[in-house]
């Protein structure tokens, strides 16, 4: 038998020549390192770290991507750093490939042509999986610059331990906290109950309620009542609805029933100085599990998380908050790789792992449905479990409202907050000074009127 070796020889030779360069090529392929700035510090950092490490280990490894976190800062610090870098300020860090940013920051960066339009990296089917309002919030000038990664809304936090004690003695009901008017009534009742328990005859500093952001409080409150707080880039303080909203916080604040504080309500929860607050869901981990008193004694705190209150007769409206991720313009390939990370990070299972340990809300329709219900059962952290259940309810019943985006909104917000607090503080001081001269209601009306008119004039 004559064996024809020629085909075998050709195959082996071809295989040899193909195998050698392939082996060398694999060795020389370097991964692309993408830098990331985010604001998930503190207890959120651990979860974020785990997810990024997992991405690097799995999809990143196969796609040749390494996500390298080069800054973990608060959202305000990130905003400052981004603008410093964008403006080329001395000492500014290099811009990252991906950053967490609020739309207001993204707008400034987009105007400088620094951001990539992310729409090009997603198919219409892929985008359809996300909650449309979340995507819309990230669309600026028709381009998708801020990709939704985790959102938040505002809810009502309650120290149920103290509230139950208070309710048992006064007959207050937790249902009263469904409306802001109810909260005002309960705040007055609580003040009357708690103040005599302090070391001094009055003014012991125990208040019932606080809103983390008075601007958001007014923005959403007026929207619940059917009008817009912001009109043509200005605060409309003259509407009766705004007056109603303003009064709902101003009066309790003056009467020492609501807190006036330049910080987060969670701080006052820690010392028992308030027991009820509206604030971002993302702040849930900052709420304590114990209350510590000045004498170093403490007691456990059961935190109840309730849907955002509504003004009587108003619609169920709550704020939609939360930053997204932006990709800086570089090369089409780097931008594409960054988009791969965003897709992975917001895939329902990964997105839910993040939100279920941080207090944020998922961004896809799928994650908000059955998957979330299943996830809630597996969450260990009682506060987050309660939060997710409340958010699921709100997702069904509430309309989510996005802060209008325009140049100067930050300054306007800051001005509103400061003016409100200063007015309330001045009025409270005046009220306390005159307290011995009449009934609280009379004195309040005497000091409030002028303060109100000054406040309204400030925004004319």
């Amino acid at each position, binding site marked *: 038998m004559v064996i024809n070796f020629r085909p075998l020889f050709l195959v082996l*030779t071809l295989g040899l020549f193909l195998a050698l360069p392939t082996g060398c090529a694999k060795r020389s392929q370097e991964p692309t390192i993408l830098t990331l700035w985010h604001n998930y*510090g503190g207890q959120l950092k651990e979860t974020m770290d785990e997810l990024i490490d997992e991405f690097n280990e799995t999809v990143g490894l196969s796609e040749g991507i390494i996500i390298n976190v080069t*800054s*973990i800062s*608060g959202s305000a610090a990130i905003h400052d750093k981004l603008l410093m870098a964008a403006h080329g300020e001395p000492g500014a860090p290099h811009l990252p490939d991906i950053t967490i940013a609020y739309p207001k920051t993204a707008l400034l960066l987009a105007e400088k042509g620094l951001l990539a339009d992310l729409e090009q990296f997603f198919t219409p089917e892929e985008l359809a999986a996300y909650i449309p309002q979340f995507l819309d919030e990230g669309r600026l000038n028709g381009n998708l610059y801020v990709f939704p990664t985790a959102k938040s809304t505002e809810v009502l936090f309650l120290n149920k331990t103290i509230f139950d004690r208070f309710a048992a003695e006064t007959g207050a009901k937790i249902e009263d906290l469904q409306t802001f008017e109810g909260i005002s009534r309960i705040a007055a009742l609580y003040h009357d109950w708690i103040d005599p328990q302090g070391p001094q005859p009055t003014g012991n500093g125990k208040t019932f309620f606080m809103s983390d952001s008075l601007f958001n409080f007014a923005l959403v409150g007026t929207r619940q009542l059917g009008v817009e707080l912001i009109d043509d880039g200005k605060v409309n303080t003259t509407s009766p609805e705004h007056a109603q909203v303003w009064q709902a916080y101003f009066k309790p604040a003056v009467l020492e029933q609501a807190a006036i504080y330049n910080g987060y309500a969670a701080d006052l929860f820690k010392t028992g100085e308030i027991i009820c607050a509206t604030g971002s869901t993302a702040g849930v981990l900052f709420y304590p599990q114990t209350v510590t008193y000045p004498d*170093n004694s403490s007691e456990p705190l059961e935190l109840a998380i309730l849907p955002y209150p509504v003004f009587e007769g108003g619609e169920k409206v709550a704020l939609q908050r939360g930053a997204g991720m932006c990709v800086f313009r570089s090369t089409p390939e780097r931008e594409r790789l960054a988009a791969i990370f965003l897709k992975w990070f917001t895939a329902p299972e990964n997105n839910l792992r993040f939100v279920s340990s941080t207090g944020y809300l998922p961004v896809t329709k799928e994650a908000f449905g059955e998957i979330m219900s299943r996830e809630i059962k597996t969450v260990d952290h009682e506060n987050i479990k309660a939060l997710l259940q409340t958010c699921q309810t709100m997702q069904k019943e509430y309309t989510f409202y996005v802060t209008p985006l325009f140049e100067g909104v930050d300054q306007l917000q800051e001005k509103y907050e400061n003016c409100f607090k200063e007015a309330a503080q001045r009025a409270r001081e005046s009220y306390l000074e005159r307290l011995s001269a009449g009934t609280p209601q009379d004195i309040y009306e005497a000091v409030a009127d002028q303060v109100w008119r000054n406040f309204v004039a400030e925004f004319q």
Partner: protein
Amino acid sequence: MPKLKKAGERGISLSLRFSLFLAVLVSTIILVVAAVLLSSGTFTAGLRQSEDAVKSELTLAARDIAEQYGHIAWQAISLARNLSQSIAEKADSINLSTSNLDEHPELLEEIIGGEYDKLLFALQVAKSSGAFFILEATVNPSHAQAVNSRAGLYLKNMEPNVVSSSTPNITVLRGSPAIARRRSYALHAQWRLEFDVSDAPYYHRLLAAAGANPELSLSRLYYWSEPLLLPGTSEEVMLCTVPLIDARGNVFGVCGLEISAMLFKLSHLPGSSTYQRLFFLLAPLREEGIPLQESLVAGGYAARVAAEKGGVLVISPTRQQFYLYRQGESHSYLGMHTVLPLYPADAVFAEEQWMVAAMVPQEDIMGPITRLNLLLFSSLVVLAIGGILLSLLLGRKLFLKPIAESLAIIKSSDYSTAPKTKIPEFDNLIDYLALHNRELSEKAREENISFQALDQFLEKTKELSPAEYSVFSLYCQGYTAQEIAQKLYRSINTIKTHSKRIYMKLDLKTREELLLYVQLLKETGREIP
């Protein structure tokens, strides 16, 4: 076997001999190449490169970590000097002694709040993630937990890695809320009013050491804690603590600076693009290995796996520079480590040894090397097979085929019209055979004539009578006529008569001619009937 035996008996064909020769030749060449590669270290070159890369990373990391820890230790010592003096003076000004601070808890907030700026300054200058001081006092001595509760202040920089320090994100982890509010700083999510020192070697060991060594300066008394979780917190921190000692030598607390796990990780991110999973580890040096629960790590997912699994990394040397670090049965890392000097040689805690290690999951290093060596080995095998096949192919075409054709020509015997083989040896042979063939033909032709005469001679012998044949037979045996007469008992005349008739029938003239025929018959192997 029988076939082989038969083949062996028949001999080994030229083709098989040729194939075996080529196989041995090519295999020998490949083996020599493999031996050269092996002896030149080609197969271990990847490992050496890996060692160089990891060693370089370790050197840089160890230098950076030593600088950072040295800087923070020095800043902690400076802070201790400042606070010791400041608090003592403050106590004096309100008629207190540092030794009886716990007798006036109502004054603690004022004393502690007064040191806020110094603490914040130290925190920022040291670029650490936290700064604190703890006094030997509590705000509520009658509280049930008072024995383990200490007043003080702990500031945390939540973003120690932020480039711009214009807006540091400072929170108060421990201390009076009033102090935080005066500075508009938030309370940390895991804030507590006081320090829990029930399990705080960074506090108790240091106080004991300071009490036992009053002659030593602060630069010989500082202490680096192992990475730990402060009660009620969730992030590991390493604390550098220094005792607070007043001018009279009274030890009244400790102060210190912190390196959080996050700060360590962000400060010492590996820069290797070769090994994505390379990580650094700072740990106490122990005989049994590296205690992971007491280590800080900087790196990727592999570092997380190592840290989360806990336990001890058992260190084993390898034949190369690498050490093997085994974490149970499931995880192994290759890397190197070096001792990190955290204390002066004459410091109280100088015996506490620390090390910095750079490690990579074993599969990340060995995988590519194994694949490369496998590729090299496969290439050699493919080259060997390819070489043999190529040799066979070319051998068949350029060697065996012409030989076979030449042999066929030789077998054909038709040398005159045979084409040239273009192999000089064979062409010469064929020429020679052609010539030889011609000579043989001529000779044969000549011999052919003689054979005809002999055959005719033999044919004629059949015409002899029996008596004549007896005489002819004896003539063939060499007898003379006289001898034949005597042998046959005949007269000589009778024999002569027979002889005449014999000569006539056989067409012979003389007895010599008869004997020549007999001789020729013998030479040609013919037998006389």
